[in-house]
């Protein structure tokens, strides 16, 4: 059976939606400005050193992943917690379902976790009669709307408060409320009850600390702290790449994460959770599980160079600064990870043949690489992936036309005489449409392929009547005659 591949999405609906364009450009612009003000040289002179340190730490952790994951497991289990190793989403779902069955749980509160979005955890739990409730405000809005995150950090970035007002009115049957603070109160009242009902709390993990067997959660709303302490069971779900060697390394990462994500020197809540309630302690869960998930990450690990995509700490800075993300938004990307980091992670995790257009959907401006707090070389990896993808296509005999085009081009460009002849021919063919060397339209037989793409948005530069080399020869001759 021929495999169905995601084709290049139709971007027109997004690009022509003026309201959405304004909402996304404004929201990302605000995040860009805030980030800039908190990493500026006068407020954080050691910013570049911190980035290098973060990169060194992540490289070290990823190069020694087996060692640190096992150290994490030993230390967590010594504190009474348990590690659950999962290959994919199905393993995760099976574990959560069996646990819920044993504890006869129904309501599960969740704090924001991209990893659970990756495996569509909520859908699977609902199919089995459980009631997962998102408690991050943005995620709660999306759950009501049956929508997926638009952004790694700000999941409902694409929605205005008026749209939220409509949604609450319709789904929660409350009087219309357009003030964001009051909308928050509405959600809060409902969610408080859910926290009390829930028997299981599920969170993600920003970091796993190998030396202490702790899970670190970074958030602004306090819902992650409640989700992980109020219910009797806490399950943290983390990708294998989340482990860092030591608690003290947080000093580096926490300085970078809040600033890069939302322009905060530190997020409002930082929780370091180390196992279940012990002995005489009066709070904390009775059972504490950390699911360590592969779900394609070890495939990324195979490539010694491109595995640096796993250094990502999910700050979203590359999305906010990306001129492509800011135009096409989060939902045109094929997977939950959007923006530049999505463009280098998705092909590596899902396979080069699944979304071959994705690494090509970049103007290679390099802004993402400049803001990445862990110094992932995103622009260079995009180029590497383009090359991998074209080789992969060639090996399957696909898209022969572009390859042939570049082969012909290389022939011309390595043969100066042929190059000059081809240039003169093109110049002759296009010399008559007139105005100042730019054409509005070309004859139909020329308006094909790349030219058609160009002319759909822009006037077309005509080849000069005489190339530089011709003009240069004339200039030399004129000078010699003087």
């Amino acid at each position: 059976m021929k495999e169905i591949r995601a084709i290049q999405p139709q971007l027109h609906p997004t690009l022509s939606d003026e309201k959405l364009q304004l909402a996304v450009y404004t929201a990302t612009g605000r995040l860009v400005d805030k980030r800039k003000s908190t990493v500026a040289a006068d407020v954080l002179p050691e910013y570049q050193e911190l980035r290098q340190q973060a990169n060194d730490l992540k490289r070290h952790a990823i190069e020694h992943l087996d060692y640190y994951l096992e150290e994490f497991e030993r230390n967590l289990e010594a504190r009474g917690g348990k590690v659950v190793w999962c290959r994919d989403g199905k393993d995760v779902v099976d574990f959560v379902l069996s646990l819920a069955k044993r504890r006869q749980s129904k309501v599960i509160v969740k704090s924001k976790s991209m990893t659970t979005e990756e495996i569509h955890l909520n859908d699977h739990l609902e199919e089995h009669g459980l009631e997962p409730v998102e408690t991050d405000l943005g995620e709660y809005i999306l759950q009501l709307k049956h929508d997926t995150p638009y952004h790694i950090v700000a999941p409902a970035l694409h929605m205005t408060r008026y749209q939220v007002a409509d949604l609450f009115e319709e789904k929660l049957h409350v009087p219309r409320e357009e003030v964001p603070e009051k909308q928050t109160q509405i959600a809060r009242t409902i969610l408080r009850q859910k926290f009390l009902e829930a028997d299981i709390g599920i969170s993600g993990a920003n970091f796993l600390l190998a030396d202490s067997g702790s899970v670190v959660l970074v958030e602004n709303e306090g819902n992650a702290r409640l989700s992980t302490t109020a219910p009797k069971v806490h399950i943290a779900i983390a990708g294998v790449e989340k482990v860092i060697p030591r608690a003290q390394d947080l000093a580096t990462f926490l300085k970078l994460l809040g600033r890069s994500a939302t322009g905060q020197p530190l997020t409002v809540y930082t929780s370091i959770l180390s196992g279940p309630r012990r002995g005489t302690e009066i709070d904390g869960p009775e059972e504490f599980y950390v699911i360590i998930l592969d779900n394609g990450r070890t495939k990324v690990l195979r490539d010694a160079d491109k595995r640096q995509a796993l250094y990502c700490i999910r700050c979203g800075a590359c999305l906010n600064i990306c001129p492509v993300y800011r135009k096409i938004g989060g939902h045109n990307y094929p997977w939950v990870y959007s923006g530049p980091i999505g463009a280098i992670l998705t092909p590596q995790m899902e396979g080069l043949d699944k979304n071959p257009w994705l690494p090509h959907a970049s103007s290679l401006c390099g802004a993402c690489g400049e803001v990445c707090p862990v110094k992932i070389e995103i622009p260079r990896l995009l180029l590497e992936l383009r090359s991998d993808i074209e080789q992969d296509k060639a090996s399957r005999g696909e898209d022969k036309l572009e390859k042939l085009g570049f082969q012909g081009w290389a022939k011309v460009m390595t043969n100066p005489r042929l190059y000059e002849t081809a240039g003169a021919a093109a110049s002759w063919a296009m010399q008559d449409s007139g105005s100042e060397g730019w054409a509005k339209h070309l004859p139909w037989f020329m308006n094909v392929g790349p030219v058609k793409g160009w002319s759909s948005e822009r006037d077309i530069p005509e080849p000069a009547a005489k190339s530089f080399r011709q003009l240069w020869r004339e200039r030399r001759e004129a000078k010699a005659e003087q």
Partner: protein
Amino acid sequence: MPKRVSIFVTCLIDQLFPKVGLAMADVLERLGYEIEFREAQTCCGQPAFNSGFRDEARSVAAHFLSVFDDAEYVVIPSGSCASMCSHHFAELYRDDPSMLAKAHAMEPRVWEFSRFLTEVAKVEDVGAVWNGKVTYHDSCHALRELKIKDGPRRLLRNVKGLELVEMDKAEECCGFGGTFSVKFAELSGAMVRTKIASIERTGADAVVSIDSSCLMQIEGAIRRDGLPIRVLHLAEILASTGDPR
């Protein structure tokens, strides 16, 4: 100060915008340089490299390296092409030690035009005259790969009669991106229009850059939209000696 420089005019400028090449030559000659134009030159290979066709990029890069093998200074009126030669050739040849050595040997000899002026010729005032208000567009590869930010602005500020105004989105991409501009035409078109709106807000008569590829993207859209803004390469401004516009 070197007396003789080789120029690489880039395929885009050679075929579409030869006046930019001539303007660069005018400026360099005015500063007393003897210019050598090697006729065998064609392209740096960037279009294929950026599109993922590395074999094809390698053969064109090898041609470049052989043409300029013994050139002491290669001055290029493009940040993007200069960066290809000084930053990306080495990536193309990482598995080929002898070509890699050649690529590394080329790196310090490749100079983007404005950087050559400010760092080798050490001039900030080239004696140009241009009456009007201009704004400068940072081309991405010049800005982020070559770290060129202030040099072109200093050169512009020293042009007699010229007022330099900053646009709010000077560092934001124009949306060209090589084949990206045609593979994702509507997206590329939306990006350049954000750029143009920023240019318009300055009230400048002209937008200036050091990359003809960005300028082609910007001018193509400005002309399509019928806007009264001129689009010029830095070399054209620096070559100008006050003839009426």
